[in-house]
């Protein structure tokens, strides 16, 4: 099999034509997103270059402490990314903790299952496996939780009258928030289900593409991709349901009243 083509600095620079193209389009159309695009391109470049060097170091050391530290940093960034999307007064008290707990628990349990039961890699903290897998699991869960949180906050605000009506009719907070929670859950897991539907036909998922480019057999790449997509599904579903199940409760007090 042909060796992986290593991109030199000139080849890599040529890829920056794409954001440049978008920059021109934005400018011509008068859409004030140029600086956002420049910042995003700059941040992506710096972050990935740094990540590359850090990963080289972590892979070379391969210690439990460094691997776990990387995992926790990922978790913290994921939680902060979700929380920063919302203004403080949009969220009921305690929601930040709930988001952190949901993302951490959902991703941690899925990752542990995946590493110990599905792959059975030795040692279990082998960073070459654990870090990229954690990245995919945490990243997707973060997106799912952010979407579910947006829908929970909007749903509880828009449907306040209906939610209160169910309390008036003798329903419990769980019954009152059921519709909002269900539609938020459905919407949050749909992107994952949609990507499963199109996997292999419309798109070759990132991990698989990477492995194939690196010279692995497509069959090996597919087996990993299948397993990781199922783990992502589990992690997204788990993180989202934990967040929603705990999150809706924050709208009610112990007297079964809607908080102001």
């Amino acid at each position, binding site marked *: 099999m042909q060796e992986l083509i290593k991109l030199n600095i000139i080849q890599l620079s040529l890829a920056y034509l794409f954001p440049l193209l978008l920059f021109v389009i934005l400018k011509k159309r008068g859409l004030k997103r140029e600086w956002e695009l420049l910042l995003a391109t700059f941040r992506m470049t710096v972050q990935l270059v740094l990540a590359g060097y850090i990963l080289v170091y972590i892979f070379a050391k391969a210690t439990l402490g460094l691997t776990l530290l990387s995992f926790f940093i990922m978790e913290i960034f994921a939680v902060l990314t979700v929380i920063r999307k919302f203004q403080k007064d949009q969220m009921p008290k305690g929601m930040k903790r709930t988001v952190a707990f949901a993302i951490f628990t959902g991703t941690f349990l899925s990752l542990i299952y995946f590493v110990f039961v599905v792959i059975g890699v030795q040692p279990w903290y082998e960073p070459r496996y654990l870090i990229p897998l954690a990245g995919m699991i945490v990243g997707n869960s973060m997106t799912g939780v952010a979407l579910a949180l947006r829908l929970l906050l909007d749903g509880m605000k828009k449907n306040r*009258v*209906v939610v*209160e*009506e*169910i*309390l*008036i*009719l*003798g*329903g*419990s907070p769980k*019954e009152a928030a059921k519709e909002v929670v269900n539609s938020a859950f459905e919407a949050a897991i749909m992107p994952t289900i949609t990507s499963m539907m199109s996997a292999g036909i419309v798109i070759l998922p990132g991990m698989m593409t990477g492995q194939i480019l690196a010279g692995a057999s497509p069959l090996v790449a597919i087996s990993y991709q299948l397993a990781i997509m199922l783990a992502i599904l589990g992690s997204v579903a788990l993180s989202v349901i934990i967040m929603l199940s705990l999150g809706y409760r924050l709208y009610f007090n112990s*007297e*079964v*009243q*809607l908080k102001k």
Partner: protein
Amino acid sequence: MFEIIDMDLKGIISIPYLKIEANKLTVILGPSGCGKTSLLKLLNKLISPDSGDIYYCGKNLKDINSLELRKEVVMLSQNSPLFPESIKDNLKAALNYHMLPIPENFELREILKQVGINKDLDDKVLFLSGGEKSRVALARVLVLDPQVYLLDEPGASLDEKTEIFITEMLKDICQKKGKTMVMVTHSKEIARKYGDVIIDLKEYSRG
């Protein structure tokens, strides 16, 4: 049935003492924003007072489980939203929240007749007029057959004739079944004609 002592809801109402008697139709009158709806919500424990006490059957509301209270004390809110399903589904939802068995269709139709609705149980509420919707909301409360009814302007979206028909029906339930009703209305005429007790909330209002 209810006793309110030194109760204060900041900026809305302040009641030194008020008694709402059992098995009577108590009518609450008062201008807009004087706290009529808030009073019903307080009695239903949907909100709590900032200070003071409310007693139900001699027991402080603070010591009564809200869900248990709402099984006995049922409120019909103003412009009560219906679930966008059939009339029957709406009645069933209320019964399910109260964990009550679903009556036979003829019994449910009887309740609809009581509120003057001549529609099929499977009709979607989306196609009902405003007045019909408000009567389905009332039927949703009647089907629960609670001990206490808290009614926030049940005739608000009805024409005068239908409002009188509904108020007479409620008065009839109150007398024949020995139920307690607290009804908010803007109509002094309805209050005088049907109310056993009339409370003008203006004197307690802090709005």
